[in-house]
């Protein structure tokens, strides 16, 4: 096998992926090598497992609409993003089983309809598939499924599977459906295979044209590359920034991109937590699945139509006074229920509510079942908005917060924080959580808690003071740290790669570009896809726990 640990040699040309073999993991291997200098990678092949939505989009591109119910493996979130998980997890036996069952369900549907499978295959084979039709189909269909041409040994393998199947089962479609079922289980389909190689002009690992086609398509559309894009990549058109710009133009203006960016911000916000959150039914009788769904949809609309609206400043994520509500959400936001569906509202300054943290889904999802939690909310903001991960509480600390009805949550926490052991970390994130104390466990505004006035003021770690969520939103908008952290998360998400210090120049450049685009995120993405941050990767492997 190519790619032995510790070596950084370029692999053989003409491997199926046409890339330098082995070196992607070689630099991180270093097994047996002495500590000290880590060899620079010269590039290699990276595998990113299709997420569920990418799998379904890929299926759609192969077969059109598939109605069979598919029980696909769950996505795995690592570091907050399933794209990072997809670059790390393995296909365990359970997942392989699910892929096998799903592939059979798909071919049951497609090959159960003679007109449908004959259209798919595109030629009329003999019953035993002894003619050339099966090979023609294997090459054409395989190119779409694997996002590259099949090698001759691959064609031989799969044509044999189809022919044996046709003979064994006595009909052409059984052999062809076996072949299709196999392609859907092949790692060449299940993984996005991305290949890069050292670019001597900048010392970075540049993705080859075919990989750029794959990267552009899955990033901008959520699905595989079109035939034209793949051909453009293979012909070298995507080797230059100008070529990428031209090829990406139509994708950049499509609604699919808005959907993709919305899903990034949604994942970043962790608003999905509301869907698994339980509340005390005696305290919050209206909190049911229907309300959870409204909260989720309202937040998705906020992201899509406010934060990512044409011309919108992405920092509205932190401080916008716009929100979406339906009849279920209207009482929570204190707005008049729309006649049907969702409507957009401008929140009154007296509502005290702005930005993503004012969304009911966020407030309810980052709370306990029966009380708000400044700690949970503050910890989320510290990790998501400041990219800081505090140490967990030290051992043998009494974390008991007495249930005292004569105190506000703030007062209880402040007593707790009088312990200097706790104050170190809680002093960093609790104040941000305190800014949300006017919102209860399902996100309803409250003037008092336990009959006592609520104090929602605080100071950010970087020094900015605020009185409440409105002030916190403004502080976050103005914070260079929060802006950098947002763009850092975007970088991680798109590349499926955690980051460390060697990524800092890219993150800095991205931040500057975003500012130059007046913080209009959709405009910024056009610059991002032609930048090194997207077209290449650092040559040093990740260090420490970021690996």
């Amino acid at each position: 096998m190519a790619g032995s640990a510790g070596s950084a040699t370029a692999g053989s040309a003409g491997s199926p992926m046409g890339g330098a073999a082995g070196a992607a993991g070689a630099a991180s291997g270093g097994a047996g090598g002495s500590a000290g200098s880590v060899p620079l990678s010269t590039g290699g092949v990276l595998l990113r497992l299709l997420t569920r939505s990418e799998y379904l989009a890929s299926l759609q591109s192969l077969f059109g609409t598939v109605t069979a119910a598919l029980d696909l493996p769950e996505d795995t979130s690592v570091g907050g993003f399933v794209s990072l998980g997809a670059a790390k997890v393995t296909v365990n036996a359970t997942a392989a089983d699910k892929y096998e069952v799903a592939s059979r369900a798909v071919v049951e549907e497609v090959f159960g309809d003679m007109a449908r499978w004959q259209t798919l295959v595109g030629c009329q084979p003999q019953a035993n598939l002894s003619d050339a039709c099966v090979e023609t189909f294997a090459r054409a269909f395989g190119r779409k499924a694997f996002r590259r041409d099949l090698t001759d040994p691959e064609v031989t393998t799969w044509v044999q599977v189809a022919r044996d199947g046709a003979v064994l089962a006595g009909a052409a479609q059984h052999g062809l459906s076996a072949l299709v079922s196999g392609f859907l289980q092949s790692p060449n389909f299940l993984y996005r295979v991305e290949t890069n190689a050292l670019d001597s002009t900048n010392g970075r690992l540049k993705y080859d044209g075919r990989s750029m086609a794959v990267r552009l398509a899955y990033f901008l559309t959520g699905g595989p590359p079109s035939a034209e894009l793949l051909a453009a990549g293979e012909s070298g058109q995507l080797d230059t920034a100008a070529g990428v710009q031209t090829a990406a133009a139509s994708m950049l203006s499509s609604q699919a991109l808005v959907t993709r960016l919305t899903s990034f911000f949604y994942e970043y916000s962790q608003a999905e937590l509301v869907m698994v959150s339980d509340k005390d039914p005696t305290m919050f009788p209206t909190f049911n699945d229907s309300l959870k769904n409204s909260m989720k949809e309202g937040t998705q609309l906020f992201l899509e139509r406010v934060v990512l609206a044409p011309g919108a400043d992405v920092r509205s994520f932190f401080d916008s006074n716009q929100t979406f509500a339906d009849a279920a959400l209207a009482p929570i936001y204190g707005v008049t229920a729309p006649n049907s569906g969702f409507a957009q509202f401008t929140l009154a300054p007296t509502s005290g509510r702005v930005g993503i943290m004012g969304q009911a889904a966020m407030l309810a999802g980052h709370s306990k079942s029966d009380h708000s939690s400044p700690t949970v909310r503050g910890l989320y903001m510290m990790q998501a908005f400041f990219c800081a991960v505090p140490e967990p509480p030290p051992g043998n600390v009494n974390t008991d917060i007495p249930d005292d009805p004569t105190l506000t949550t703030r007062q209880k926490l402040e007593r707790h924080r009088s312990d200097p052991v706790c104050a170190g970390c809680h002093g960093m994130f609790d104040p941000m959580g305190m800014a949300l104390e006017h919102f209860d466990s399902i996100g309803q505004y409250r003037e008092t808690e336990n009959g006592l006035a609520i104090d929602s003021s605080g100071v950010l770690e970087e020094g900015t003071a605020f009185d409440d969520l409105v002030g916190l939103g403004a502080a976050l908008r103005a914070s260079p740290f929060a802006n950098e952290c947002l763009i850092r998360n975007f970088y991680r998400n798109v590349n499926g790669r955690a980051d460390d210090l060697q990524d800092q120049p890219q993150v800095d450049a991205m931040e500057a570009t975003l500012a130059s685009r007046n913080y209009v995120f959709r405009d910024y993405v056009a610059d991002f896809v032609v930048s090194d941050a997207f077209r290449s990767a650092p040559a040093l492997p990740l260090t420490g726990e970021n690996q």
Partner: protein
Amino acid sequence: MEILKKLRVSRRFALQGAVGGIGVSLWLPVLDAMLDDHGTAFAQGDPLPTSFGIFFWGNGYVVGDWTPSGSGDSWQLPTNLQAFAELKNDMTFVTGLDMMDAQFKGHGWGVMYVLAGGDGNIINRTSDITRGAENPNATQYKPTIDQIIADAIHTDQPYKSLETGVLAFKGINMGTVSNNLAHRGPNDFLPPERDPAKLFNTLFGDGVPTGSGGSSGVPTDVSYQLRRSVLDAVWEDANRLKGTVGVADAQRIDAHMESIRAVELRIPEGSDGGTTPPPTGCNPTAPAANLPDVTAKSQALNRLITAAVACNMTRVYTHLWSGARDENTYPQLNINRDHHTLTHDGNTAEHTKIERYIMEQYADLATVMKETTIGASTVLDQTLIYGISDVAFEPQWHVHTDYRIVLMGHAGGQLPGNRHVRLQGRKVTELMLTMQQVMGLNVTEFGSWDKTNRTISEILA
């Protein structure tokens, strides 16, 4: 062990047979056809297979309510284990074991320790731990003990190991350990199936409706052959891809290739044309879809786990009741505050209720196994279940001191049971090493945190 090969249960056979209730009392002894006249061994003299399981729940236990009176054979169950009153003879209750220097570190590290014996760095003080475990990147860095045992004792059961669970994780994300127990390495985990209907379909069904659509007219045996040939070609594809990638991805592909083989093994041998007599009794009826409440789900899963073991479909099973630091509420007990918060708010009444409830579910599993016979023996006689939580706790905060460990079953007579073994200051890794030896592994040391070559013979006959 040639005989075990013949025990492989085909799904085809599993689908045949008279209607059997999910109630285990209706099952016939699965392996009777192959047993000797006494029902104590296979006709050829090989002993009955043993099995290993884990029952894990998060957030530990109130130590005081888990303290039995007496020790050795003259002991009384502690208050929170009363659900095992009828199973006391099958229990070995181990108390007193610590994690390293017993300094508290956190849930994530607890789960790394009690399931995998540490993260691979050889240390014995919690202050020397270098890897984070309570963050969204957390994972197990070493294989969990169930996977170590599965790799060693698996022959050709269709499932090398079976992963089930009940409560989907809620709370602060701790990476892959939040929602998964079984790990084979970093980010290489086996997710638990929490839906009894899906589990049934996986174990005893075919996954896909057949007899219509593309496979119309294809005999079952032929479709099995087709599936196997497809998987062989998929494996070839994976093998070719492996040659092009770096070390880390090559390991991922290796695991993937192993998974492909595992799926292949689950496809029944269709070519025997029914010459092997079908094992009787492996025909539990399907549980209802969308069972209404957690207790009903738990009971259905317990019966399916037992069926899988009884039918020799697997020899290793893990059941993840809830994850470490779990924040589920228990509305079925009228408890609407989350479990983890309850462990810190000084109200022991409610989390005692939760603990007793969880132990009722564990006791239900053991009861079903006790009622399910294999010849003259029972599943519980032949199995060993490691009942463990990530941490212990005093009334208001957690500790890694004095773990309470509920071992159930006799592992083919090796654990006499009805015993409280109290070993203060000894380590959980010693018990984990002992359990591996009980399961027949030829190992003499275990663990990276508290690496040990010491065993706990006190649990043995």
